């Protein structure tokens, strides 16, 4: 306690929270403007569909389980007017409003509503950040001019949200994300959303906000602050920094600094995780794959439109065929590159797969599911359709078509591996379109240098026992002894031999074979 007491004697020299440091942490270089979109009635809004489905529009309350049993978490205005408050037990609420209809809180729907809002917000700004459970942040500096100013932007956004989800929203725009959130949560009187353009004004504008309504600090902390007579943000900002940090922790001080814009607040960007998922009931049931392929065409058209609108592609698709009793038949397609709006291409691949499909039962319904949406590569547009020199661009499609019929493993590329054992000096790789090396021999040059000479063009996967008596040995031996470290130890003497028909063979004698073992000569390749 001694240092604490010593510092207390010089209160006049301690800077207050709102006074800028000599070296402000957040430089004014990042000229961001954050719009906070707060949903004050998230619980009710997320259950809107369920409420609307109720007959006769009864008074509604959303309940949740608390330590004390079921308590009211949200209710509509009529119920509120009757005296029902947040946190009241369900029995108390029913005593006040006997006709009360209670709905269980649905966290999943709340999340869905929030993500739906974030997706809509993407029309207004590319930088979106979620603030669960009940707010979305949009960086709107770049969008202000496009939408004709902050007020017009907010009006458009409000209109859009009201029209699509019916949710009530409160907005605020400030240079600091946290300040925007606090303003939006506080819900200042007046229809117009709050707009603070300059970071320097933030502290003064934040000052009148009540801590209890906007800052979601721990209840104990808020209680302590209140016993000290600190009720507004401004009360806290007037306190000395070091004293505040010591009493309430550095985290809380950091929050205040973020709200006033003294400290930057990096936000995680929201990425829309959209997927295509559509079903189609088939009437009558189809048992012919050809007709099935035709029935899928409209779904593929929808998918391609969906992708074009978003300028995205998919790399994986799944078609589910539902039968009367048999388990669902799944057909999975994978593409070498993300494909966008090319229904014929996907339909062609799908037909290839469906042709070889044995249906256990007629199909009652089909469902088309997409994998995650991916960025399209920018080579899909052909300016001169007749100029087909870049025909390697067709390669991915060829590989897909071959794989659709022959299976994934049936198509591969080749690569050299720097390795002494002949069978390990190559490997099958995924064929990739990449910029070829100027030498024209690719990786082969460095790996195959010196080793490619005197090697056969055909290699046998497993060396075959071979009778060397009629062969004429031309070159050799070349001793290859390697691989003791990975269990595939070899010790071989390789020879180039010629048979009676003029063919050149690559044979080896296994030096590890026991003398009495008989077979010790093997054929490993042909100099084709």
């Amino acid at each position, binding site marked *: 306690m001694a240092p604490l007491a010593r510092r207390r004697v010089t209160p006049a020299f301690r800077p207050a929270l709102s006074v800028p440091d000599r070296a402000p942490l957040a430089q004014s270089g990042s000229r961001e403007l954050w719009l906070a979109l707060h949903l004050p009635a998230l619980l009710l809004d997320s259950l809107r569909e369920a409420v609307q489905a109720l007959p006769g529009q009864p008074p509604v309350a959303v309940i949740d389980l608390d330590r004390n049993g079921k308590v009211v978490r949200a209710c509509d205005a009529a119920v509120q007017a009757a005296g029902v408050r947040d946190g009241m037990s369900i029995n108390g609420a029913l005593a006040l409003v006997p006709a009360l209809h209670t709905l269980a809180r649905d966290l999943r729907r709340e999340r869905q509503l929030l993500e739906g809002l974030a997706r809509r917000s993407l029309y207004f700004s590319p930088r979106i950040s979620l603030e669960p459970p009940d707010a979305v942040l949009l960086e709107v500096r770049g969008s202000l001019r496009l939408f004709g100013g902050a007020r017009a932007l907010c009006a458009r956004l409000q209109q859009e949200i009201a029209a699509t989800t019916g949710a009530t929203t409160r907005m605020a725009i400030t240079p600091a994300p946290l300040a925007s959130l606090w303003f939006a949560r506080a819900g200042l009187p007046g229809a117009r959303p709050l707009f603070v353009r300059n970071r320097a004004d933030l502290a003064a504008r934040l000052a009148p906000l009540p801590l209890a309504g906007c800052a979601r600090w721990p209840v104990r902390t808020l209680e302590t602050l209140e016993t000290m007579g600190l009720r507004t943000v401004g009360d806290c900002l007037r306190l000395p920094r070091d004293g505040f940090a010591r009493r309430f922790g550095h985290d809380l001080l950091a929050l205040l600094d973020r709200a006033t814009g003294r400290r930057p607040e990096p936000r995680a960007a929201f990425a829309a995780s959209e997927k295509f998922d559509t079903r189609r009931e088939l009437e009558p049931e189809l048992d012919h794959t050809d007709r099935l392929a035709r029935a899928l065409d409209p779904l593929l058209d929808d998918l391609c439109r969906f992708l074009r609108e978003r300028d995205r592609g998919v790399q994986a698709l799944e078609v589910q065929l539902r039968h009367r009793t048999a388990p669902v038949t799944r057909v999975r397609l994978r593409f070498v590159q993300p494909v966008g709006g090319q229904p014929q291409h996907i339909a062609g691949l799908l037909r290839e797969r469906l042709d070889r499909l044995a249906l256990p039962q007629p199909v009652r319904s089909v469902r088309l599911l997409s994998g995650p949406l991916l960025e399209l590569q920018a080579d899909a547009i052909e300016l001169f359709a007749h100029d*087909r020199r870049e025909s390697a661009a067709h390669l991915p499609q060829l590989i897909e078509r071959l794989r659709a019929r022959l299976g994934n493993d*049936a198509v591969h590329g080749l690569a050299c591996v720097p390795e002494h054992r002949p069978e390990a000096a190559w490997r099958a790789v995924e064929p990739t*379109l990449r910029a070829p090396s100027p030498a024209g021999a690719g990786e082969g040059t460095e790996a195959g240098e010196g080793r*490619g000479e005197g090697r056969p063009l055909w290699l046998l996967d497993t060396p075959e026992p071979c009778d060397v008596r009629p062969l004429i040995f031309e070159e050799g031996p070349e001793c290859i002894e390697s691989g003791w470290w990975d269990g595939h130890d070899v010790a071989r003497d390789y020879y180039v031999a010629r048979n009676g028909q003029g063919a050149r063979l690559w044979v080896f004698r296994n030096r590890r074979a026991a003398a009495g073992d008989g077979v010790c000569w093997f054929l490993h390749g042909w100099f084709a």
Partner: protein
Amino acid sequence: MSASVEELLQRHGAQLWRARERESDSGAAAAAGLPTGYAALDRCLPGGGWPRQGLIEILSDQRGIGELRLLLPALAALCREPGATESPPYPPPRSGHAGSAMLPHDRGSGGWIAWVSPPYRPYAPALAAWGIDVARMLVVQAAAATAWAMDQALRAEACSAVLGWADPRDPQALRRLQLAAEASRSLAVLYRPLQAGLTPSPAVLRLALLGSSSDGLQVRIIKSRGGRPATVNLGH
């Protein structure tokens, strides 16, 4: 009165269609073959090399007599062609049609070579030693669907060369392959057993390979559109 062939040639030289010049009628560029890398063989082939359009059949029962070596100089040349050195996924900026005139060949399909159902593993280090870009090989194990896979590869216009090992008994499958090869700018090569030489084929060039311990590889041209049957000894 019957005019001799010589007289006819003299009188109507320009109008007469001669089988030997068939390819050059359709334009000098199209007729030029892809040099095989073997001067003796080039001399016997119309166009001085592998026909750039149409199916090539190579008939052989023996392995290891040089059936691949026969093709490799041409394949290595395809890998080095201007079209092949462009990076395929990012087409170079084109400045109208003036740019295309700078590229002498119109068949650089990225230098990719498709191997459809090869009997053994094409051995990457050996291919690299022959100057072939191993990174642009596409190995396809198609078993019974070899003709189909070749057909797809030819129609896709995605490869500089398509090599296949199969013996399609069905004349229609062969015909289909030949049509695809004719329409495609890829070099199309089908390896078949020697026995297949007894039945007719729509291929533009048919070669039978015979190996012997004394003379090395002997290439017998069975059929050559616009050329003549011949036998070439390529040695060891």
